[in-house]
């Protein structure tokens, strides 16, 4: 579904992502892990079109999206969340989801007229669904900036879903969560996969990654050092070395 080929991103002399190739298959949860500064977030930003690619290609459902602008990537069916939550904090919960609902079928202007005549009822219904999914019913009129941390995380996920994505890129969605919340998130991600959404999960919290993913790729210094099932990754020497430092060299 998503295919990265020999993807590289250099910032001056720093090779943030270096010759990275990987394939995410439809319907799976694919984990992307690695120590701090290993290029995970940069990879997400490259896929979304936020950063220009230095070399290599990105294709999504057979279409080349290497140099697509971010809103084009969204139109193609990619949506993301951010490592540091980025909600529109002076918009209400409801509006946060509303603005994300640009991608529906039909021509822009005819849709506009249709929606206007219909009083936007379809849009309203699906927004209510998303608010319920995020567990924020009754809080639709609250400003997003007033929500608690966990609620903001859930709203950001709902906002990504509001774009109608086929593939979700989640950048450390469990950061700062307690164990209870991580379990909830795990449950939520499985629900999404059942709905037919594919997930690329960038994460540090191993309880989540090892439990929920189908396959994992490990980055270190911008390079892929391992790929496989969670069980394979846990026993991989190169991975252990990257995380814990080289052992027993003496």
């Amino acid at each position, binding site marked *: 579904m998503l295919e990265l080929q020999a993807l590289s991103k250099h910032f001056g002399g720093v090779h943030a992502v270096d010759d990275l190739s990987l394939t995410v298959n439809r319907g799976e949860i694919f984990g992307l892990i690695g120590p701090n500064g290993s290029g995970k977030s940069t990879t997400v930003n490259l896929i979304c079109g936020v950063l220009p690619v230095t070399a290599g290609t990105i294709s999504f459902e057979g279409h080349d999206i290497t140099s697509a*602008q971010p809103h084009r990537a969204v139109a193609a069916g990619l*949506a993301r969340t951010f490592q540091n939550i980025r909600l529109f904090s002076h918009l209400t919960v409801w509006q*946060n989801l509303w603005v994300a609902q*640009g991608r529906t079928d039909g021509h822009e202007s005819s849709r506009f007229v249709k929606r206007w005549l219909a009083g936007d009822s379809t849009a309203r219904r699906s927004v209510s669904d998303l608010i319920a999914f995020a567990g924020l019913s009754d809080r639709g009129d609250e400003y997003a900036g007033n929500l608690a941390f966990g609620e903001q995380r859930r709203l950001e996920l709902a906002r990504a879903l509001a*774009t109608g994505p086929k593939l979700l890129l989640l950048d450390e969605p469990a950061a700062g969560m307690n164990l209870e919340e991580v379990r909830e998130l795990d449950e939520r991600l499985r629900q999404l996969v059942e709905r037919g959404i594919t997930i690329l999960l960038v994460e540090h919290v191993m309880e989540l990654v090892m439990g929920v993913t189908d396959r994992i790729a490990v980055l270190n210094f911008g390079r892929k050092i391992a790929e496989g099932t969670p069980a394979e990754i846990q026993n991989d020497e190169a991975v252990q070395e990257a995380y814990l430092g080289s052992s027993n060299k003496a």
Partner: protein
Amino acid sequence: MDFYYGLLQIIGMHTILGLSAYIVLLTGQVTLAQAGFFAIGAYIAGMLTVLAGWHLVPSMLVAAVVSGTVACLVGFPALRIKGLMLVVATMAFGEAVRLFWFNFDYQRSKGEALVGPLGGEGFKQIRYFPENGWTTGEVATFVWIWVALIMAALWWIDRSRAGAVLRAVGEDELAAQSVGINLTAVKVTAFAVGGFIAGIGGAIYAHYTTHIEHSNFGVILATFAIAYPILGGLTNVVGTLLAVIFIQGFLVEGLRFLGDWRNLLFGALIVLAMNVRPRGLIDERAMLFLRRMFGLAKRGTNA
């Protein structure tokens, strides 16, 4: 009575100017170009009624379309710059427009006299209102019909999804792009609509004063244009109107008895107002209060 009609006209025109900046500010772009668009509207409409002998309303609309188009062209390069750099760039544009009119001569004979813009001397004899026998009261009504139309249109945009999109871009461009919003389209549209509105304001202004010159459209006017919505708050268009009434009605006219000290107090009061109400006179909390007071339905269930 004429004094009050005159004041009403001024407040109306400045409200239109402020609203032209309001929509651009919603997208997070601080612009000092509005005086330039105001000037384009003023000169074009003036030329159409005086030189071409058009009716005022079509002249205004053509003038607004011209300044909207120029605004659209300015919007594209402005996309690449943000923050202070944008302020400087738009200010430079405004000055370029002013200097264009400073150098622009286009006079035609009308009866015995020559009429039309004459560079630094300005554009005199834009006498549409007196020639057609409009009273000051009628002019004031005419101005306020436009104010009402523009406020209603912006109010409607604000309540629609478009309003939320503009604000989303203003708050966080990266997040806005990431939910599928086309930044280029949104920012350029905001600029174009702002230019259109400023053009209407300028067109009215030219016919109100009957004599315009380049120095009317300097940085001071551009600063006023953004001061209104910033002071009034970007929560809704009413804030801009209140800010114009506060500045033009109270600070400029109401404090006239203070003589030269007025200007000092003027600045101090604006600083004070911004400190007391950092998000403007009408902020989210004020709106929440008003909505509760009048028991209006909430957005999520009704809008």
